């Protein structure tokens, strides 16, 4: 007898096997979902040391002896919340910085209310950010601090460092859009023709839910279907469920974006691409990227669908600093901060980079010379997932 083209018996037996497994899994899943789950996010202890309107400054409690003279200020985007950097113990950028002996401050932008709709980029950068930087400088009796920005927060850091270079010692930008004239990312395509005036005039602040809907539509197949299929498949795994719920908590915790800030960001950045050309004006002053003379470390993700590499990689070539470095990781927009693979190298590398540049040039030169005599300088391991481009 000839062999049948389709092995129906095998397919059916496999199906029966899967159905049995699904039944067992559903039973376990119900046990997991009914017992108490640990899904708290942002649990690393901190004090709120400064408050202005809705904005708070978090100061994290050091876990080891501080090794840097200057503290690090982290500026998150106005979209979603800074809790992403402290999702859970063992998967927290903040915790990793603390373990590296870095004194960490982070801005919590809060939830903008209707009254905040008039706040512009100028109010955020030259207002809140500058006041916070001054507060930290006063508190530590310093002239400069380290600055690190995430996504739109990175763009704010770039603007701030160009307008107040005297207050920033080193800057780290991560997944930071500065060149908006690209068709690599869907956001860049959609924003070009958006009638931003009409939307801002109608809503005042841009509702977080509308923003979230836009982000989900960037990849509906994965973000609206596959993600939840994955959840159903792994519902019997308690750790997986806890991590998934933490991520869901973070991703749909979306404050509204102040209308005037959104209007300027879309018009000047997405539609006119003024920032990278040093033509953008904030608070009546031109943002000249050549004034960014402090060392700059620029991280971005190769598979970032929100802020593609093309939107990030031009910055280092446009600033006035000669000490710049681009690092492109083989991951997406969020993977840099939360994937277990990059947790191990992302923060230690930034910490190392900052430590090398924490002290003043003269002192650093003298220290380096002594160190060279004693030991051969260790070079960082190059992994396949890491591409770096230095300009020194």
């Amino acid at each position, binding site marked *: 007898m000839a062999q049948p083209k389709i092995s129906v018996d095998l397919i059916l037996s*496999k199906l029966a096997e899967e159905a049995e497994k699904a039944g067992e899994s559903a039973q376990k899943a119900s046990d997991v979902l009914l017992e108490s789950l640990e899904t708290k996010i942002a649990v690393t202890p901190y004090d709120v040391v400064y408050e202005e309107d809705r904005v708070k400054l978090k100061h994290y409690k050091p876990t080891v002896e501080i090794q840097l003279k200057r503290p690090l200020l982290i500026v998150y985007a106005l979209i979603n919340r800074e809790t992403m950097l402290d999702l859970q113990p063992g998967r927290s950028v903040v915790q990793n910085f603390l373990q590296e002996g870095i004194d960490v401050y982070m801005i919590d932008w809060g939830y903008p209310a209707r009254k905040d709709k008039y706040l512009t980029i100028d109010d955020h950068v030259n207002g809140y950010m500058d006041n916070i930087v001054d507060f930290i400088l006063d508190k530590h009796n310093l002239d400069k601090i380290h600055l690190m920005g995430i996504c739109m927060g990175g763009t704010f850091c770039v603007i701030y460092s160009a307008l107040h270079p005297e207050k920033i010692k080193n800057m780290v930008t991560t997944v930071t859009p500065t060149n908006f004239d690209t068709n690599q990312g869907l956001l860049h395509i959609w924003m070009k023709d958006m009638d931003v005036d009409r939307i801002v005039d109608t809503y005042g602040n841009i509702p977080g839910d509308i923003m979230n809907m836009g982000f989900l539509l960037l990849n*509906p197949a994965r973000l609206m279907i596959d993600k939840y299929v994955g959840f159903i498949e792994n519902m019997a795994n308690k750790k997986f469920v806890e991590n998934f719920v933490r991520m869901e908590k973070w991703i749909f915790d979306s404050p509204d974006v102040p209308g005037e800030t959104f209007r300027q960001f879309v018009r000047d950045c997405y539609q006119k691409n003024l920032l990278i050309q040093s033509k953008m004006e904030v608070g009546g002053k031109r943002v000249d990227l050549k004034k960014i003379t402090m060392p700059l470390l620029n991280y971005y993700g190769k598979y970032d669908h929100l802020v593609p590499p093309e939107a990030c990689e031009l910055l280092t070539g446009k600033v006035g600093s000669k000490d710049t470095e681009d690092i492109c990781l083989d991951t997406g927009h969020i993977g840099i901060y939360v994937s277990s693979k990059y947790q191990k190298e992302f923060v230690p590398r930034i910490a190392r980079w900052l430590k090398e540049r924490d002290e003043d040039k003269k002192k650093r030169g003298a220290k380096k010379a002594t160190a060279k005599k004693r030991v051969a300088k260790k070079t960082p391991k190059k992994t396949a997932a890491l591409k770096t481009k230095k300009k020194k």
Partner: protein
Amino acid sequence: MNENEQNKSGPETLFADWMKTSTAFWESMASTWPAFNKAGGVTPDSKRDDKTSRFQKSWESTQKTWTAWSQIITEPETMKTLFKETGMLPEIFLKIAQTGLNSFVHLQQQWLERAGKVQESTKSYTFENFDEDALKVWTKLYETELRKIFNIPQLGLTRFYQEKMIRSVDKFNMFQSNLTEFLRLLSLPMEKSFQVLQEKLVALADEGNLPKDSKVYYQMWIKILEGNYMTLLQSSEYTKILNKTLHSMSEFSEAKKDLLQDTLLYTLPIPTQKEMDELYKEIYLLKKRIKELENRS
């Protein structure tokens, strides 16, 4: 019976007699009024007297008008003319009915012409893409023909509220129409992905390579779906419809807000969003000014 007797018993005489009797009845009723007042209605309260006399005066005046009018109408000449015209009544009614019917037919004709125009403007659509065409036809029909109804000028004291309500209904219709088009567009990759998957499965079945694991089918489908979405989301058509939907959503939100603010909230003892916005702006500007002054000093 002679002609005079015949005339006397005709409808004119009957009508005149009825008029006279009823006038006499109401006259006698009116004359009993002062007697009624005197019998039980008189009180030392002068105000009540005033009220009664005002009512009586009004009654007397009405009665006088009725008497004068009935006298005129019961004159033989008037009665004759009246009953002559009565014979013409069917003709008058017919005329009114004819005019009404003509207007109705004309209106229907106009609608038919409009429908004809719609047909002309939608000739290019075929039944190959029925859902898409139906949507486009509806949107065009609404924009060019049905929307005119909402533009009919509103009159009277409540004109302002009617306009707000109608504007909000119109903007809602436009938003719904655009949203439906947007959702239809988003459903296309899903529809297409199933088609492609089926074709792939047929090819695999022909080769005898059908996967045994159901997860493989799912992975195949999700990959196709993702690819189809990427193609759609990067297209200019998608951006165009997305912007159109966002625009109409904003317009509807604004119209709805206007309706609620200017009609409902306005009557309640609470501030409207418009008023609060003005206040917020003032606070914002004042704060800025204070900061500037602080920096200067």
